[in-house]
């Protein structure tokens, strides 16, 4: 057994030395190496293909990884730019709103106080907004509140630093109004559903129709005359009832209120023209 393993070693050494001797004496080992090459070449070909495939796969992976990283970077940059764009857009919109408000303020022939909406209540029981003007600014209850589109409502509570403005569509809101075209007098009331209705005497309002503009009447000495309240969208015909109702689309979008004007002064002039400029 022991001899066998040394014999094997000697045999292997002899074979190697024989091959080397044959090669160095110019005989070459052509046939042997050719035969071995026939055996190794297909494996080499397969391995090289696998190698290339692996390299290609790796390159794809690296490319994908790089694209992914680049994508993440671009996404981040995009987010930043989008945010910047939103800020610019917001500033631009605020600028436009303030310009309109300033323009209205200049057109109105009474003293006004610009104010910012800092809170809102629109649960249905009460519809109001809170503005950042209060006792210190000389605000009194019943002060009318407007925006360039028309009447918002009136101040119902004044507190230090802020005031509560009752919106037109508050269920408890009632305002003396008039149809601008037919001069039909009536009352604009809020509704629990958030709608605004114009209540008028049937015999006088027979000619009121959709599209008619309803403005404040100026009666009662709370609201100046001519403040746009809304446009008629439908008439609720009650047949022989004494009063009819017109459903109004408010002139003001209460959900988008941000800056308002408080009409702190008094005037007997019709203000409709000041609002008509802005549409």
């Amino acid at each position, binding site marked *: 057994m022991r001899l*066998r393993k040394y014999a094997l*070693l000697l045999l*292997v050494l002899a074979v190697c030395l024989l091959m*080397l001797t044959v*090669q160095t004496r110019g005989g070459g080992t052509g046939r042997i190496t050719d035969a071995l090459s026939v055996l*190794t070449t297909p494996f*080499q070909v397969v391995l*090289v293909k696998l190698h290339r495939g692996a*390299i290609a796969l790796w390159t794809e992976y690296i490319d994908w990884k790089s694209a992914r990283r680049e994508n993440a970077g671009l996404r981040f940059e995009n987010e930043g730019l989008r945010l910047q764009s939103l800020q610019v857009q917001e500033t631009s919109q605020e600028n436009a709103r303030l310009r309109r408000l300033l323009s209205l303020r200049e057109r109105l022939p009474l003293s006004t106080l610009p104010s910012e909406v800092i809170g809102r209540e629109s649960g249905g029981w009460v519809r109001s907004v809170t503005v950042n003007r209060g006792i210190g600014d000389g605000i009194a209850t019943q002060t009318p509140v407007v925006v360039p589109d028309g009447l918002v409502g009136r101040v119902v509570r004044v507190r230090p630093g802020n005031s509560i403005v009752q919106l037109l569509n508050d269920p408890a809101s009632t305002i003396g109004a008039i149809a601008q075209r037919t001069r039909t007098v009536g009352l604009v009331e809020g509704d629990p559903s958030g709608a605004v209705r114009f209540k008028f005497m049937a015999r006088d309002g027979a000619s009121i129709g959709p599209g008619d503009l309803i403005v404040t009447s100026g009666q009662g000495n709370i609201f100046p005359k001519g403040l746009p309240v809304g446009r008629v969208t439908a008439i609720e015909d009650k047949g022989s009832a004494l009063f009819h109702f017109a459903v109004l689309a408010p002139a003001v979008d209460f959900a988008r209120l941000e800056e308002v004007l408080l009409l702190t002064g008094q005037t007997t002039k019709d203000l409709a023209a000041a609002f008509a400029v802005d549409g």
Partner: protein
Amino acid sequence: MKLSLLAMALGGSVAQASVVSLLTVSGATPDLPIMLTLFWALRRGPEAGCVAGFLAGLFQDVTGGGLVGVQALTKAVSGFALGLAAGRMWGESPLVQVPALVLVTIAEGIARWALLQLFHYPAPLGALLSEVILPQALYNGVLGAAGLVALTAAEAVRARLAWR
């Protein structure tokens, strides 16, 4: 066993000639055939180590384009010597296997250089040692250690699965 030995020798040598260049680090490449020879010799003894070394070296000679028989001889002797040594020391321990791999790579390199001197190989041993043999020996050691860790982990997983 004979077929797996042949496949191992052939696969290792062909891989050495084709894909191992991918693993080159600072000019040093591992010697897969000698690692496989060591693996075979430590587990199967001197005869298997000798045959494995011979076949792996022979295929390496053929695919490498040098003098056919040089590496066949040096690796056969290496495999035989490792197989003999494994019976006299604790060959299963990684603490033996990894240093053995480093040492056998150095010894095989020196033996190859000595054999090539018969054929007037021009490169000096010093330069070969510092530029080729020692870096390759270290690389083999690192790769061998990593291979052993992977092998141990695989065996542990297999044992756990078998136990379940």
